[in-house]
């Protein structure tokens, strides 16, 4: 699926996800949207190693807590940072007012501080001593502002160390493969008018 080409607006895709968003899963007749829902579905259906989404009630609650917190906080500020700093000027050809960008980056900073202080703390991973889906969700969100040129790991050695651990657990090749497209987003050619028209309405809210 290529979002930059507006493919998610096609009728064929609407059959998979009427909300026209990715990621989307199709397992026989069963279709599912929302990344967290998909991750948890895959974890349980394919009986992946327990540490990804533990059976233990309290250990799992820690993962659930992170997954719930991140959606309206870190995820939101990472997406806005990427769109306001890079995607909007480069892809849509529209600069975002300086003060909006400043406020978004301040918000991102606040979220990163909370990530370190309230979740990571002195642990190796976000929900405890082992890697879980919480770390995958977090690292993929953080790669968005990174792709826009935000040096979020530079002044945060604890977070940088955590990133190295996650990358090592996932495997360098797989990590790079997963992030290849987003890290090249800044090199996208400007969108043509028809694509801009298609994407602009859904993107407006990210630019404020």
């Amino acid at each position, binding site marked *: 699926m290529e979002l930059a080409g507006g493919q998610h607006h096609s009728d064929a895709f609407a059959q998979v996800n*009427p909300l026209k968003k990715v990621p989307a899963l199709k397992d026989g007749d069963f279709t599912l949207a*929302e990344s*967290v*829902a998909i991750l948890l*579905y895959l974890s349980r*259906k394919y009986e992946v190693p327990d540490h990804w989404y533990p059976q233990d009630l309290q250990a799992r609650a820690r993962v659930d807590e992170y997954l*719930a917190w991140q959606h309206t906080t870190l995820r939101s500020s990472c997406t806005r940072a990427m769109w306001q700093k890079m995607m909007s000027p480069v892809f849509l050809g529209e600069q975002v007012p300086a003060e909006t960008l400043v406020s978004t980056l301040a918000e991102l900073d606040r979220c990163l501080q909370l990530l370190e202080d309230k979740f990571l703390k002195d642990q190796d991973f976000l929900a405890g001593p082992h890697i879980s889906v919480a770390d995958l969700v977090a690292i993929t969100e953080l790669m968005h502002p990174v792709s826009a040129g935000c040096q979020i790991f530079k002044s945060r050695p604890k977070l940088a160390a955590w990133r190295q651990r996650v990358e090592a657990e996932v495997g360098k090749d797989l990590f790079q493969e997963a992030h290849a497209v987003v890290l090249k987003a800044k090199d996208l050619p400007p969108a043509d008018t028809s694509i801009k028209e298609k994407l602009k309405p859904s993107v407006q809210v990210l630019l404020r």
Partner: protein
Amino acid sequence: MGLELYLDLLSQPCRAVYIFAKKNGIPFELRPVEIFKGQLLSKDFSQINSLCKVPALKDGDFILSESTAILIYLSCKYPTADHWYPSNVQARARIHEYLGWHADCVRGTFGAPLWIQVLAPLIGVHLPEEKVQRNRAAIDRALQQLEDKFLRDQAFLTGQDVTLADLMALEELIQPVAVGFDLFEGRPKLAAWRERLEAFLGTDLCQETHGLILNILEQAANKKIPDPAPEIYPYMLLRISRIP
């Protein structure tokens, strides 16, 4: 000390946790927290939840925040009927699918009218009409998606049974209703869902849970809402600034 739940019933996620615990007969000590009296920022509370947010759960030494996590924890730890958070992988996935969309399109959006009409004015802030209208439009869009994508022809949001998703949704939808925004008007399908859900939960429990928030306008009119504690002004201003 058994289970403790730190809740402010003015808050939507707090009400979802309260109503779930009560409906399922889960024994707990209610620890009321009044957000506007600055109690979230008190030293005592920050030892409970360093994120300084409600709802918060304390189960012995185990402390948990985030309503979704709390609801899942309670439904798994205590003997609750399977339908709330089914063990069936696909049924469970539907709840998480709803909660993902809810985080993007409902949370924050449905809380705004209370902030606009009652809470911001308490500290002398009046939002421009443009933002008020934008919020209304966002609410309308979300309600349409709620009906078309989730409810459809089902009895409840993710199927034929009540789940955690329905509780989270109900409590968010009640919030604008409390300030006179009757979003069930002209939406018979959604109104029927609300009726079914409230019948399932029980009138008494609904009145007990919703009493405080549904009384908010009357409280405001009679100047019965206490002035917010100065230490929470920054939190209030930050929240207000997030209304697009």
